[in-house]
């Protein structure tokens, strides 16, 4: 078997005969090194220019995890207030996902009725808890929640008989629980138990060393217990704040005001099919549908309407742009209209429309039409007339001249030459590009929406600004991805039919 291995002498001989093959030219080597060095220098400069290291160092990465977890989960926050006499009371957050009178099975309570003296300070304005408003009138115009009565009270001492809690047990999961009784908070997580004494006022004192999941900045101050994905808790002198995290989107269909809230799917279905009307004015089905659409937490109807606006903005904007760009591109193509002045004029006009940019157009049209999809449509229309016009005229300049000449040679009128000699060549390209821009505008319409030009952008932006509605952001992002994916497929299918296998 012969091998192609060369001996060193042969190699040298080849090298001396063809030096240019083995040695790249100096300028080439220098250029590569210069480009690589330039990029590195630029990256270092940008690191300094944007002070990236400093910003990343100061960032609150702990909260990033919480925000990300909020996308797909929710917290229930019972707060246990500990009085100096070691009795306790329990509150849930306002708008708790568990409804108005939550009584979850992961919180165990021991109650006792006591009579004691309570001091009521003068400044206390006690807002009566809004009465659970009749769910039947939910979101119908003019139905304010139950009137909130405020009671001003003088400073006085009152004797009250009330029910207090003597023992509270919160169970996070099988290995994590918190038990509070007699001024002692006993937290168990992953086999370790931490006992903390709370005095009902200021100080928390842990008994024994803190396990890794508990942190206390200074002695006596609050202790933060981090239980990982299942939640966390904060122990203060007079309060234990429990944050129990559950996977999923809370109350996605029915909010806590709906009569269907808290019912299993089977119960909801049997309620809908039963003849007994929850609201005498309408059937249970329409009530259920109405409750879903006007869900206060998720605002399904509003989200869908805004998403439809985004889609409409992209559709109408692109369609109008291609309709206007179509006649203009014939004027811009130098092989169709042989006038240099006209070509340049129309091409510079296209450049102008493109360079002013969708964002500036969006801001202007928001001023002109008021916020809403009309502004978005106009912005997309103006920008894309420029872009499509440019692409169309380039497509026209690249056509095959033979067909035109053929049609011209049989004595066809100028319009017929364009119709039969030019259009059949470029129409698939035109349509394909319009489809591509329709699809890509569906994405950009989201962004210009955020500056007020209609669509889901603004809603998305507002949901993010509150920093507490990340699950709504996730919902909207999911819907946007779905819509973009569907349009992507439609436009790809149409384009590959138009262009044959050429189009990607």
């Amino acid at each position, binding site marked *: 078997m012969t091998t192609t291995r060369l001996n060193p002498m042969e190699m040298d001989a080849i090298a001396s005969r063809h030096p240019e093959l083995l040695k790249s030219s100096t300028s080439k080597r220098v250029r590569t090194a210069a480009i690589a060095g330039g990029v590195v220098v630029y990256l270092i400069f940008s690191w300094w220019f944007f002070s990236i290291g400093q910003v990343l160092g100061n960032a609150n990465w702990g909260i990033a995890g919480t925000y990300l977890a909020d996308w797909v989960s929710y917290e229930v926050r019972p707060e246990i207030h500990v009085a100096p006499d070691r009795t306790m009371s329990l509150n849930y957050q306002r708008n708790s996902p568990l409804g108005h009178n939550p009584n979850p099975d992961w919180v165990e309570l021991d109650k006792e009725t006591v009579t004691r003296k309570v001091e009521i300070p003068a400044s206390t304005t006690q807002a009566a808890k809004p009465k659970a408003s009749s769910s039947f009138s939910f979101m119908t115009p003019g139905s304010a929640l139950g009137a909130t009565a405020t009671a001003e009270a003088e400073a006085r001492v009152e004797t009250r008989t009330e029910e207090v809690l003597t023992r509270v047990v919160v169970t996070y999961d099988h290995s994590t629980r918190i038990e509070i009784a007699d001024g002692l908070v006993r937290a168990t997580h992953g086999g370790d138990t931490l006992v903390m004494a709370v005095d009902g006022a200021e100080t928390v004192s842990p008994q024994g060393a803190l396990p890794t999941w508990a942190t206390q900045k200074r002695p006596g101050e609050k202790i933060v217990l981090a239980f990982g994905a299942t939640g966390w808790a904060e122990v203060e002198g007079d309060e234990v704040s429990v944050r129990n995290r559950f996977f999923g989107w809370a109350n996605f269909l029915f909010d806590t005001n709906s009569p269907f809230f808290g019912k299993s799917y089977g119960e909801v279905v049997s309620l809908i099919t039963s003849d007994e009307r929850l609201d005498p004015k309408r059937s249970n089905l329409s009530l259920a549908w109405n409750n879903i659409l006007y869900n206060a937490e998720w605002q399904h109807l509003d989200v869908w309407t805004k998403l439809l606006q985004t889609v409409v903005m992209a559709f109408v904007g692109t369609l109008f742009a291609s309709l206007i760009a179509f006649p203009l591109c014939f004027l811009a193509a130098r092989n169709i209209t042989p006038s240099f002045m006209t070509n340049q004029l129309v091409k510079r006009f296209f450049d102008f429309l493109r360079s002013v*940019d969708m964002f500036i157009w969006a801001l202007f049209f928001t001023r002109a039409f008021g916020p*809403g999809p009309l502004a978005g449509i106009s912005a997309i229309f103006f920008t894309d007339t420029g872009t499509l016009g440019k692409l169309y005229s380039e497509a026209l300049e690249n056509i095959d001249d033979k067909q035109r000449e053929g049609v011209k040679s049989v004595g066809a009128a100028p319009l017929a030459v364009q119709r039969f000699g030019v259009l059949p060549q470029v129409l698939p*390209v035109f349509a394909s590009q319009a489809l591509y821009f329709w699809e890509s505008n569906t994405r950009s319409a989201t962004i210009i929406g955020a500056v007020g030009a209609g669509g889901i952008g603004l809603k*998305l932006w507002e949901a993010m600004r509150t920093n507490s509605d990340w699950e709504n952001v996730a919902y909207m992002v999911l819907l946007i991805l779905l819509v973009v994916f569907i349009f992507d497929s439609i436009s790809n299918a149409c384009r590959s039919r138009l262009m044959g296998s050429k189009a990607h």
Partner: protein
Amino acid sequence: MATSLLPRQLSDNGAVIERHWQELSSRRRLYSWLGFGILFLALSGSLWFANDSNAGKFFDRLPHFFDFVGDLAPRDGLEIFRAMFDLPSPYDDGSFKYNYPEGRLYLTESFYIPEYVHKMLETVNIAIFSTVIGTALGFVLCFLAARNLMPNPWIRGLVRRVMEILRAFPEVVIAGFFLAILSLGPIPAIAAVSIHTIGALGKLFYEVVENADMKPDEGLRAAGGNWIERVWFGMVPQVLPNFTSYFLLRLEINVRASTIIGAVGGGGIGELLRLSIGQGHQAKTLAIVILLFATIFAVDQFSAWLRRRLVGEQAFQLAQ
């Protein structure tokens, strides 16, 4: 008409062909009209919906369409120039409207960069930086997504799905998320734009790689080159011009994108423009618009020139 040249009387076969042709063309015409009808219905429905859900109605607002143009006219033409270069205004009354010199960024005792030029540079720099990052990561990923270099369908599919998600994920959300973690500033915009760029460029890149000539690769494989050597010596030299062209194209798009992201809280010129339009500062608005227009125009022209030199006319066929 062409038909007049044909004999009136067709043979039986001719008549069948004629009839089939008539049927086909009438069906085709029907489909065309049906298509136009659906398009028209969709368009009118969309227009009605858009008009109905807009704050101002189209026909109510149309007479006042150019009102805001009047609002934009500054007190004199030179004001625009003064606003752009931070020169003191004769109308200065201490309000934010005429406080041009306050934005100056002094580099030395007497030499300063005007505020808007500085912010414009920041925006352009955001675009360049994120395009560089996006290109670098897209470059690494594209070889893993190309059919001809990555025979394993699982890795290929995974990388492609990742790119799709990066591409379709709304930029606003990425910017908003980083804005919540980091403080206000350009980094949320950089993150948003680069993440989108990775997905967009990765797709274009792997399509280039899939269309590349495989002969150098075969040679390297025959000589026993490993995967990295095959990519580096067989693939990269032939795809580099196209990659550079797409890099420049993306730069054009990213200058616009970073302006918009800036307007929703990412710093740079976009935020200033939104504020200045909202507060009705005519000269400042016009100065920014002119600056922005000139910058975008210049970047576009420069990139078109460079792309034409790199890959010739090919760079201009359905570029994006």
